[in-house]
């Protein structure tokens, strides 16, 4: 300590101050839009349009949220609709991608590497190429305006990225475990279900969280395939809401807040898995 000159100590203190300042500026940039979202959601139509703008409502109320849930655009049923899609999608994605990864990681069959490469290559195809024919095929089988186009694909592979992720983790588990279980008379499905999957719980949770987020936030899919207002998801509902309540920004912000809250809750519950998933997905990939 005594070896350190006063000048150097001062300099270190200075850099600490700069560091904290930068952290606070970054935090403000991240948080201020949230503040504006919440502030507007609690304002009535008159307060929204006061100049200069108010920083907080003079009489904050939940009226906007009442509009969101109980006015002519039934957000509540959009929540239910979205859940009706989210649950099978999350289930189908986890089961189907982990089963495929199990097959690729643990079994040998002719042309395995080729099949794997084919399955993974679908990651590289931009949506723009498959979009129109995909739509036309669903139209041909009369599945437009149903949830099938949004749900069924998840049961066939569950996405190239997830197969890849699961396979990476399957390969970290020693094969001795499978062999021991085989000697004890367990079949492949039992090994998958009772031995390997419990060991992969963290990956399962990661995939489930990302799938939930992706489905909850998806706008393009539902917009393409759902026509009837009663079938809308929250994302579509919010878009409809913002175009029909365009000038009532308080209500629109309340709607945006309502749509965002579940994702924030899920994030706080599974923060650890999120970070893990983002990092393994990018660094190992």
């Amino acid at each position, binding site marked *: 300590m005594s070896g350190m000159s006063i000048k150097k100590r001062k300099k270190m203190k200075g850099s600490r101050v700069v560091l904290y300042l930068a952290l606070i500026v970054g935090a403000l940039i*991240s948080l201020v*839009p949230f503040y504006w979202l919440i502030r507007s959601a609690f304002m009535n139509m008159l307060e929204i349009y006061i100049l200069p703008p108010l920083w907080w409502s003079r009489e904050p109320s939940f009226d906007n949220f009442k509009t969101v849930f109980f006015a002519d655009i039934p957000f509540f049923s959009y929540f239910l609709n979205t859940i009706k899609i989210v649950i099978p999608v999350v289930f189908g994605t986890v089961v189907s991608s982990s089963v495929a990864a199990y097959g690729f990681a643990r079994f040998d069959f002719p042309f395995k590497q080729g099949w794997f490469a*084919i399955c993974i290559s679908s990651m590289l195809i931009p949506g723009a190429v*498959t979009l129109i024919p995909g739509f036309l095929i669903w139209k041909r089988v009369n599945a437009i305006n149903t949830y099938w186009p949004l749900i069924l694909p998840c049961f*066939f592979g569950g996405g190239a990225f997830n197969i890849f992720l699961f396979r990476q983790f399957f390969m970290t588990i020693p094969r001795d475990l499978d062999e021991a279980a085989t000697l004890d008379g367990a079949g492949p499905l039992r090994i998958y279900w009772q031995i390997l999957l419990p060991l992969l719980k963290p990956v399962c949770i990661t995939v489930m969280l990302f799938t939930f987020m992706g489905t909850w936030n998806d*706008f393009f899919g539902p917009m393409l395939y759902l026509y009837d207002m009663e079938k809308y998801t929250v*994302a579509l509902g919010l878009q409809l809401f913002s175009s029909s309540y365009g000038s009532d920004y308080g209500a629109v912000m309340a709607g945006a807040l309502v749509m*965002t809250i579940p994702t924030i809750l899920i994030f706080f519950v599974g923060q650890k898995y999120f970070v893990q998933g983002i990092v393994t997905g990018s660094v190992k990939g």
Partner: protein
Amino acid sequence: MGQTRTKALKKKRRWDHNAKVGFALVTPAILGFMLFCAVPIAYSAYLSFTDWNVFKAPNFVGFKNYIKIFTSDYLFKESIKATFSFAFGSTVCSTVYAFLLALLLSRRVRGISIYRTIFYLPSIVPSVAMCVLWSWLYNKDFGLFNTLLGMVGIPKQSFLAGQSTVIPSLIFMAMWSCGNTMIIYLAGIQGVPDSLREVVRIDGGSYRHELIYVIIPMVSPVIFFNVLMGLIGSFQAFNQAFMMTGGGPNNKSLFYSYYLYSVAFQQNKMGYACALGWVMFLIMILFTAIFFKTFTRHIFFEGSES
């Protein structure tokens, strides 16, 4: 004779019970690829050579769609301009911003995990909610940004409604939600061995030297990968154009995906839209190849991996 027998045996062994189980397990994924990828690709390739417009049967027109795209489609040019400027701008700005945030988070400071959560929070906001929120933030008279600018004496900006401001505004919005990239960079920075940074310190180097000579070179493969992913992702941006700008003003935010969508589903020119999709795919492949060629030489790869 003997040779054919061993061959047959070998083949039999390869298709033994174990192999059949394995193949059965991956069958759904393979079927999924066929149904939702291979068939649509083939169908799309076929349609791109027709004039199909939903109402009457498709006629084969050869390369007419492709020729039209490159020679006489004014909106195609506009959309390429808008898409590229957004893709490059948002990728570069988000990369720099995410890297700076990650550097801040890599310092040992009390309460750092709270800052990490706060910096990540914007990325959790659903895209539709984000578009709605930022349209309001950018509102000319009652929005947050003009209120803040007014406080420091800067005149009102038209943001999304201005020809020169619409792309920068969308880029700023993209920067705001760069949390995923930030987390990846943070992991990369934390993975840099302390011993290497120690060497710089012993030689009397400052943090700046650590950054330039150790951290950035070590993290460069991660940056490379994420810049490429960012470009590919932002090249396909759709929601902002659909929800916030409608492609305007004066086509300045006519993103490629949005243009393709409007050609297909508002003008019903399915054949032409498929051709547009293929052009986009080809541009992306070409672009990725150039990107790899240009940058892989400057990237530091640890060991023989990646």
